[in-house]
């Protein structure tokens, strides 16, 4: 049931992506990369908080989003894939900026955006994704849900409990385990003794597939197949997408403490954005000029997003807004006290 060879061809059943789709994927991978790099660098200037760059996961995020239907399907990301999910709604990129600034509006995803906010508590979004898929099935809604999580996160009970429930209920959910080799400083060899992460699917009674996560086409085809299964009532699939975390875990991390430069160097040859550009280039679908132009447009777009973010107002009392539909009496007292105190201190 488990295909354990990276790079195994996706089932012939899956067609696409079309050339146009491939070009769009290329563009989105570049956008993701540029936004991620810009946010990372802004942290170095103290202008945004701790953040996790996408480096290495572009093909997984973009390829999976491309294979889904933004009008029907739901995506539950961890914290690294958001940059690649623009296909589900371009506002997402603006919101990423706000979120990483620590702005109270950073989670205000508009109603039509079927993407769940950032998840920091690892693996907790997996039961959520299963719940959504289960609910869609009960309601008879079309579509499926897809959840991203890391090799590290796969050790949490939440993953197993949720995948087991999904297997019982044959919920239309796709588990995308991003195996990027590391969980901060912990290599996969300290994470599990299983022969592969895909093999964990045996514990739940649905298929597991190990694929090359640096190849957006393979990702697309696998997810398309998984989606067809899920929406066809055949239940979940676990996809282990293998890549390498090329960058820092987050801005707070120093990977030279725990891994060899050689390993990183070796992985660079599989860097997904350049690799895909070369592939499309060889097929006459893409050029270096297009890369440069797309990068320029992404930077411009980022500048716009950053400017809008700066201009997005907030006030301290925003913190009382969304705890409940209506604040408790005690919260109203606290809010009034806070406002009075800030006024007295000349801060408000």
């Amino acid at each position, binding site marked *: 049931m488990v295909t354990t060879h990276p790079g195994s061809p996706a089932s012939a059943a899956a067609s696409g992506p079309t050339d146009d789709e491939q070009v769009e994927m290329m563009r989105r991978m570049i956008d993701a990369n540029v936004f991620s790099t810009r946010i990372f660098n802004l942290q170095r200037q103290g202008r945004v908080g701790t953040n996790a760059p996408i480096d290495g996961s572009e093909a997984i995020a973009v390829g999976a989003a491309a294979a889904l239907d933004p009008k029907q399907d739901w995506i*539950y990301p961890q914290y690294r894939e958001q940059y690649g999910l623009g296909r589900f709604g371009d506002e997402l990129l603006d919101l990423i900026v706000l979120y990483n600034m620590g702005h109270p509006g950073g989670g205000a995803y508009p109603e039509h955006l079927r993407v769940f906010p950032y998840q920091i*508590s690892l693996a*907790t979004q997996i039961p959520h994704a299963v*719940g959504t898929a289960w609910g869609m099935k009960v309601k008879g809604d079309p579509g499926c849900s897809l959840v991203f999580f890391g090799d590290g996160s796969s050790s949490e009970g*939440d993953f197993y409990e949720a995948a087991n*429930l999904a297997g019982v209920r044959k919920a239309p959910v796709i588990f995308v385990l991003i195996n990027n080799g590391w969980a901060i400083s912990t290599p996969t060899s300290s994470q599990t003794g299983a022969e592969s992460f895909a093999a964990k699917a045996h514990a739940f009674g649905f298929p597991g597939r190990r694929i090359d996560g640096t190849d957006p086409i393979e990702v697309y085809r696998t997810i398309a197949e998984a989606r067809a299964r899920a929406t066809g009532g055949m239940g979940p699939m676990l996809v282990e997408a293998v890549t390498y975390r090329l960058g820092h875990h987050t801005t707070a991390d120093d990977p030279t403490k725990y891994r060899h430069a050689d390993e990183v160097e070796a992985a660079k040859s599989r860097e997904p954005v350049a690799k895909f550009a070369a592939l499309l280039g060889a097929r006459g679908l893409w050029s270096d000029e297009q890369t440069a132009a797309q990068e320029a447009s992404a930077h411009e777009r980022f500048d716009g997003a950053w400017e809008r973010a700066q201009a997005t107002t907030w006030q301290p009392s925003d913190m009382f807004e969304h705890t409940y539909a209506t604040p408790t009496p005690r919260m109203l007292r606290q809010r009034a006290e806070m406002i009075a105190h800030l006024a007295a201190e000349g801060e408000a």
Partner: protein
Amino acid sequence: MTVMTMVEAINHTLHEEMARDDRVMVFGQDVGINGGVFRATEGLSAAFGDDRVVDMPLAEGVIAGSTVGLAVAGMVPVAEIQFLGFAYQAMHQIVGQIARLRTRSAGRFEAPITIRAPFGGGVRTPELHSESLESQFANCPGLKIALPATAADAKGLLAAAIRDPDPVLFLEPLRGYRMVKDDVPDGEHVVEFGKARTSREGSDVVIIAWSYMVELANRVADSLAAEGVSVRVLDLRTVVPLDVDAIADAVSACGRAVVVQEAPETCGFGSEVIATAMERCFYDLEAPIERVSGYDTPYPVGMLEDYWVPDAPRIEAAVRRVLGTSA
């Protein structure tokens, strides 16, 4: 009005709410054909089918965690944790996720989630079946916490919980399931959260309590009434939102108060009631407020539990001390 035990009232309300709103789903361990280990969900699966009444795998984390996703999909989940002590297995979902869904999404996603769980002692259950954890959850903003003391309130508060757009921990006193029995309004009956109930009128001293401890407080009030002592009993009903005004009014009016909690003394909800009274009516206090509570040990084994859980004699002794009339 129909006389019901508390568990009957809960069962009846679940039937009514599932009939009223077909987005309501009930799930947990053994809630289907078995009707729940206390029969709270009896008959639901026959009435509403096993798509809406679901026996779950034995995993509290995903019982709680899946509610978030179901809510996103537009359902109204009513999950049961078989005993509150096992909510610890789901704490990261209840506190870290469910309670924060609205905040994290800046108001986009609501969590109209109810988590029901029996709790409390006095019925000789095995370990971790009797723990009172309300104060631990009360320190976690984003949750509401309802603890009915009567069958009528069990109906009114459960209906309110299920209809509330925010997540509610609905805590049912194990000992009250069959011991508590009273008139339950027929038809629509919703009790607003955050409004305490005066269970006994009185003016010399107020006993502040919630859940099954209200029953004991009433008994003490009734027995002291015979001696001419006028004891008020205030049933908090929900500890979040807290009816701060009702606490302040009762304490100010009586000048003396006792708070009763079933949890261990340290950091139980009683300490919050005292801190609240300190803040609001310190100058009206004629004596320090006393706490009657479980002790600072794990909930003990069956032969010891009656000595651990507050009982009427301990409450009465505290009332007499607060009144300055102890022997």
